[in-house]
């Protein structure tokens, strides 16, 4: 008797970046649990409604519904969510969320708001791509993630030095300067 043992590696079910009204800024799903667009939108609506009135600004918050655990954090007008299965280690999910938030903070040079995110959507999408691959966690360290996105070469070493970060951010600044308007 007891809970089903979790023998597999930790799996992420989705990563969501929504605005302060629950609209999508950038989302990525890694599970067939939501096979249609409507199913995904319904999930986003639920998760947004459930967490709207809470205050997840200083510390990451957590909630559970259906068979999912969702950890989340709000920064300015952006809502960050990471979802796992109900038996997942909540602290692992939380470390993925932290990596995501930290990386976005670095890439947007601390202007973590919807407008800046949309103006740098390419960076956000690349960022998400460097965190999880098909549900498997690639990296949880924010500066490592940001480094992989912004630099055009990857160090052989494990962590990035301050020097490399500023090189990386110089490239990010280039992206920022580009206007996406017609």
């Amino acid at each position, binding site marked *: *008797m*007891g*809970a089903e*043992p*979790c*023998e*597999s*590696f*930790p799996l992420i079910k989705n990563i969501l970046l929504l605005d302060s009204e629950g609209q*999508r800024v*950038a*989302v990525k799903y890694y599970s067939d649990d939501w096979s249609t*667009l409507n199913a*995904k*939108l319904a999930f986003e609506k639920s998760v947004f409604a459930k967490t709207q009135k*809470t*205050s997840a600004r200083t*510390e*990451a*918050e*957590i*909630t*559970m*519904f259906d068979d999912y655990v969702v*950890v989340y954090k709000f920064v300015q007008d952006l809502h960050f969510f990471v979802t796992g299965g109900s038996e997942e*280690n*909540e*602290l*692992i*999910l*939380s*470390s993925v969320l932290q990596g995501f938030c930290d990386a976005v903070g670095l890439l947007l040079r601390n202007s973590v708001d919807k*407008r800046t995110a*949309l*103006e740098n*959507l*390419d960076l956000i*999408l*690349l960022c998400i*791509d460097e965190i999880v*691959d*098909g549900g*498997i*966690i*690639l*990296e*949880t360290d924010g500066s490592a993630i940001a480094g*992989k996105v912004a*630099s*055009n*070469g*990857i160090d*052989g070493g*494990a962590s990035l030095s301050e020097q490399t970060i500023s090189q990386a951010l110089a*490239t990010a600044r280039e*992206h920022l300067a*580009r*206007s*996406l*308007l017609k």
Partner: protein
Amino acid sequence: MAQPLVKKDDDRDDEADYSPFLGIEKGAVLQEARVFNDPQLDPRRCSQVITKLLYLLNQGETFTKVEATEVFFAVTKLFQSKDTGLRRMVYLMIKELSPSADEVIIVTSSLMKDMNSKTDMYRANAIRVLCRITDGTLLTQIERYLKQAIVDKNPVVASAALVSGVHILQTNPEIVKRWSNEVQEAVQSRAALVQFHALALLHQIRQNDRLAVSKLVTSLTRGTVRSPLAQCLLIRYTSQVIRESSQNPQTGDRPFYDYLEACLRHKAEMVIFEAARAITELSGVTSRELTPAITVLQLFLSSSKPVLRFAAVRTLNKVAMTHPLAVTNCNIDMESLISDQNRSIATLAITTLLKTGNESSVDRLMKQITNFMSDIADEFKIVVVEAIRSLCLKFPLKYRSLMNFLSNILREEGGFEYKKAIVDSIVILIRDIPDAKESGLFHLCEFIEDCEFTYLSTQILHFLGNEGPKTSDPSKYIRYIYNRVILENPTVRASAVSTLAKFGALVDALKRVD
């Protein structure tokens, strides 16, 4: 000069709704994608267009098969550019488009070239893209490169290959099994995440071979584990080995229990928690084995981080189902969680207390819960109601205060599922606790006087019809039932009439009603 018709407020709204994608339209962007065919590629412009395409897809826009094919072919032209930023976007785009087998062939040689590129970023990403979009036949062609990549000096490249291996294992296991040697080597990597990914892949390859998994666990629990994630994996695999082995008959200690217990002192919280949870889930776990795990979980209960409190209280809640006594030490910490801002945590705390509380604490608990109920949503309330039901069955002598509590909340605001849960609980208590029958039936009668849910009224009337006649003084219930005959909608009236009929049939003394 004309006065602007737009009010000041509207200006501010425009500012807030500003988006670089305002007015974006699929057809227009697909037209723009024609710049991919230019002989002189403008990398910036192309990256912008890809971003817009990705934005559309992200917002739920779909491409028709024809559109997707056209975009895909156009994107493949972009391999001609040496711009690394653009190449990243190309990789992303290819993955999103999920090309079909015959489309994939077009990009295979470009991707294979990138897989052997001097630029690490190209190698890592090309591997991920290729493995995502190819099938078995192509995989055998690139297998050599993947095996090399697994033991590549660059950890990002190695991780890319290993993670891709895990995915490929689902569809082409025979291919990935040939990489065992390289994967073994990668498990010894000094790069933290490479070891994590290698461990995950190696276990997947070997998972049906009990002996192999056991050997893997034995060597790693004695070796160096370089990341908290890898440590968590090892804990899970260790639990699997423990489950599949039998207890050491001499000492009576489980194999590897010491390893799990040592992990409780790891510096990473995710490892401590994984180990504590693993211990609580050991089959046939003893109180002695549980104690160190529960101590650690108890500390988490007072953490400032909601995630930690939640994880701990959820685990303790499960333990309380089978080992309530082991959790009673945490009762004081649990009680302070009843007022936790996070209502999931508060509900879990209450339901745990309801499982671990003893008879004397019931009254105090009920008082605390009464204040708590108004604060939480229906779905949480239902969980609490069910826990109270179990508590009452555990301490039948306490039925009075628990039944009062249930009838009070029945009178308050609430949705159908919630009211139904309460009614079901009262019905169960009536059935299982003879002393509670009279007060229970009485509370149900009072409820149907003012019940907005036809389904519940009819269920209760039906139940009254079965139980009422068996009580010492059935006539008490007649008034309530009769009022329903007069005052309700047709469905309820019909139900009330049949109930009266049952009373009439079963209770001789009532056969003549004035």
